[in-house]
């Protein structure tokens, strides 16, 4: 399997191809983990910079409830001052 085949607008030169299904599947799992890590870091950075929940939610393309549920406890425990709205 070749990851490149799934790209609609990237050429073979742009994405390194993986020959093995196992590598491609592991890449999906790793990318999800990385996305979660980046989300944790980016949401915290935004909230420390004074962004509101609705702004962060809109930027992520998720509901305010979803982003609040996922991050509020962690950020409160970390002492981040959160804006109410």
């Amino acid at each position, binding site marked *: 399997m070749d*990851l490149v085949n799934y790209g609609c607008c990237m050429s073979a030169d*742009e*994405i*390194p191809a*993986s020959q093995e299904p*196992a*590598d*491609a*599947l*592991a*890449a*999906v*799992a*790793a*990318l999800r*983990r*990385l996305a*979660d*890590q*980046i989300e*944790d*870091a*980016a*949401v*915290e*950075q935004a909230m420390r910079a004074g962004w509101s929940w609705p702004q962060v939610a809109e930027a992520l393309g998720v509901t305010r409830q979803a982003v609040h549920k996922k991050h509020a*406890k*962690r*950020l*409160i*425990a*970390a002492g*981040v001052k959160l804006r109410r709205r």
Partner: protein
Amino acid sequence: MATIDHYINAIIEQAGCEAQETGSATIEAHHLLLAIAVKGETGTRQVLTSAGLDHQAIRDALDREFEHSLSAAGVSLAAFDLPRPSRAAKPSTQLGASAKLALERGFASADRKRDLRPAHLLLGVLRAQAGTVPRALTLAGVDQAELAARVMRSLTLEGG
């Protein structure tokens, strides 16, 4: 509760801390492996260390697996320069799919519930056919089948 139940709880609890440490919302099979390397029963830990797998070595192998898997999609960890996020307020208590499979396989490897030993739990983790644990072990140069066989032998020696 039987001793083995306390043991399983202790391992899952430690795995929850490992998950929290790595920013994972769920406990996965590799967190169980890390937990066994820290809080595991002595004989089980010895089998792991005999293969060069102490807690730090497993962490290193998992980091390599993460980077290696990302590279298959052309992504480099070094490309992201975000500050490290704060940890979750509490250790994770939710078992992810890979951890559930590992526990099921561990339970299934004992004939009867009362025959269940700490080594069966490790065996359950080592019987994964795909996913993070097998890939990390391969990258660490560990023969997964041989390691599982060694765990089996430790069970036989124990008389379990």
